[in-house]
């Protein structure tokens, strides 16, 4: 006797109908409007055209049917018990053969759209740790087939993950116990501090969006008043034509915007992080927060892929750090795979780090990007200014000296130092167990990645770096990438080390 699903097989016969309907819906979505338009117009004109169009339409439908049949025939799947993997072949014009090892299957579940309900078929989805685009979807199986397939796959998968599921169960028991210890709480005062020291630009931006939408809503009604409005602007310019008054007024507007920005940021932070509490149980960190919607997240150390610590000089003084944690995105946490915990003191932060990371941090080798990067930064940042100068020379050629001076002051006084500090702040440290990237002038970010959670490494070299032996390095994780530009080839040896570190590792990375 064959084991079930060991021979390549097609989906349920109903699948042809499902594929056909799906294709037709796609077709209607693209050409539907044109078809309807044509028929409405066509009836008015002459009926001969309509009959041609009708036959074309029928022809298209027949083609779709043929395509659906082929696509159904070509879509075959089976289980390779010897190699312990699931294999799927598909595609009419572009063919693809996918093999999915049992050990990499995260979950097997059903999904049914309205169309699938009507036809009476099930989607069986094999979920992997990758993005949703990577999941395998067998869209048309009968109920019994779907259940059999799920059961067999789940048996195979759980056979390998027995140990882990046991762990999970004990975790669940622990959570209900009273083992949890409070790690971090945000008081109202801390929230206030946070609001006052957070990113104001976000607040200003929110105001601008709000004003923009208001303008769009009311703009149409005010058409009549537009001429008056124009008069108003002209009046404004006439009344404040003296440059000093204009400057003061603009400054006032800016200050007002700034204060409003702080205000809005604070309110946003209050709503989002109200009553934030971080508790540590035996196996996880439990996070709870929010005024309007209460968010609850459970952080298991194994799921954590990448951690980012964000602060700025003002918050540093107040001992406030924000931890952003990227966890491996699987189906369970589709809504949010990045979690922020703001307002943590350094002590608490260390505690969280100690809990979430498998290894202790030890000092490593620090890399800085080559100075070429600074040159590139200041050249790129200078381009808008050069553009402004060019536009200026065309629009107001008489004021070129003034414009040139202003631009020069901006460039030398703001761009050069800012880019310099940005360049100075950028560094990458590779320790025996971690990769740590630091960046940012005002908002300082530290990104931490445990080496054994690395997925792969990419090294890029544009040909003009060849002579200098420089490379761009990217560390890929399941929670995002860490890239580091224009760095000496000395880092290559540490890439070898990183690969070695991953390859000798037996621990589950999620």
């Amino acid at each position, binding site marked *: 006797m064959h084991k079930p699903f060991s021979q390549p097989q097609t989906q349920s016969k109903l699948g042809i109908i499902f594929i056909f309907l799906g294709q037709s819906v796609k077709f209607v979505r693209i050409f539907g409007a044109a078809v309807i338009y044509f028929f409405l117009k066509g009836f008015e004109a002459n009926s001969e055209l309509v009959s041609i169009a009708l036959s074309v339409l029928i022809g298209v439908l027949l083609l779709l049917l043929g395509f659906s049949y082929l696509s159904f025939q070509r879509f075959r799947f089976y289980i390779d018990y010897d*190699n312990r993997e699931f294999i799927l072949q598909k595609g009419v014009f572009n063919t693809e053969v996918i093999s*999915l090892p049992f050990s*990499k299957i995260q979950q097997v579940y059903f999904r049914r759209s309205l169309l699938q309900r009507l036809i009476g078929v099930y989607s069986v989805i094999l979920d992997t*740790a990758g993005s949703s685009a990577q999941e395998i979807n067998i869209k048309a199986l009968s109920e019994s087939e779907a259940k059999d397939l799920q059961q067999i796959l789940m048996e195979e998968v759980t056979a390998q993950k027995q140990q882990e599921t046991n762990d999970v169960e004990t975790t669940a028991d622990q959570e209900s116990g009273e083992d949890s210890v409070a790690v971090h709480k945000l008081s109202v005062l801390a929230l206030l501090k946070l609001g006052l020291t957070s990113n104001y630009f976000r607040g200003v931006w929110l105001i601008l969006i709000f004003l923009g939408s208001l303008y769009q809503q009311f703009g149409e009604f005010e058409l009549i008043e537009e001429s008056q409005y124009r008069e108003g602007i002209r009046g404004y310019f006439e009344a404040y034509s003296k440059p000093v008054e204009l400057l003061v007024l603009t400054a006032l507007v800016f200050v007002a915007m700034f204060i409003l920005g702080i205000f809005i940021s604070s309110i946003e932070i209050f709503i989002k992080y109200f009553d934030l509490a971080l508790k540590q149980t035996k196996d996880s960190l439990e996070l709870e927060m929010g005024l309007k919607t209460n968010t609850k997240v459970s952080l298991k150390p194994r799921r954590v892929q990448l951690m980012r610590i964000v602060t700025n000089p003002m918050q540093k003084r107040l001992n406030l750090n924000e931890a952003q944690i990227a966890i491996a995105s699987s189906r369970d946490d589709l809504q949010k795979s990045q979690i922020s915990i703001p307002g943590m003191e350094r002590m608490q932060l260390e505690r969280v780090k100690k809990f979430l990371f498998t290894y202790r941090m030890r000092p490593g080798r620090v890399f800085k990007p080559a100075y070429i990067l600074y040159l590139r930064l200041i050249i790129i940042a200078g381009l808008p200014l050069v553009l402004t100068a060019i536009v200026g020379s065309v629009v107001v050629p008489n004021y070129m000296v003034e414009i040139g001076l202003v631009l020069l002051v901006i460039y030398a006084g703001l761009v050069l130092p800012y880019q310099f500090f940005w360049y100075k702040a950028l560094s990458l440290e590779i320790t025996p167990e971690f990769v740590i990237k630091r960046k940012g002038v005002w908002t300082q970010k530290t990104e931490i990645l445990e080496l054994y959670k690395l997925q*792969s490494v990419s090294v*890029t070299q544009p040909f003009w770096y060849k002579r200098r032996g420089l490379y761009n390095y990217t560390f890929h994780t399941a929670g995002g990438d860490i890239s580091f530009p224009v760095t000496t080839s000395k880092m290559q040896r540490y890439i*070898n080390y990183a*690969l070695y570190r991953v390859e000798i590792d037996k621990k589950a990375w999620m």
Partner: protein
Amino acid sequence: MNTTFTNTQIDLDSLPDYQEIHYTGVSVKRFYKVLCIQLIFFIAVTVGLFFLREVTDVPYLIPGLGAGIILFFLSAAGYQYKLQQTLGYAIRERDIAYRRGFIFEKTTVIPFNRIQHISTSASALDRIFKISSLNIFTAGGSGSDIDIPGLTPELAARLKVKVANHIIDEDDA
């Protein structure tokens, strides 16, 4: 140089160097396939140009555009020729490396124990030229996945089995 690692007993120089890998090139049929696609586009654009000639009478527009188009397609073909030479893959005991790019040379190394799944794929044109691609997926998103084109279907299938066996070995170990 190694001062920071003295406690770990790992000599960085003794680690296998991925830069010393010998890469295997991909089939030249991939280049022919890309040329074929470019030729189709070239013909389409040329036909478009003929129609344009009927409706405009701007002096030098057509010869200028024609020269530009020819130059563009020649350089695109030249680029593909150079690119073809840089494409290469290598399988080591514990990982697979893929190198591509001629203006930007990019090398991606994926350890076998981080591969999620593998597939082989072939487009309609690929099948005319009798080649296919090997796609390797990780959990690290599209930046970390690799897609090796221009393999003979047998080779792609064999590589797939080989890599798949490695994945399973890694899991059992």
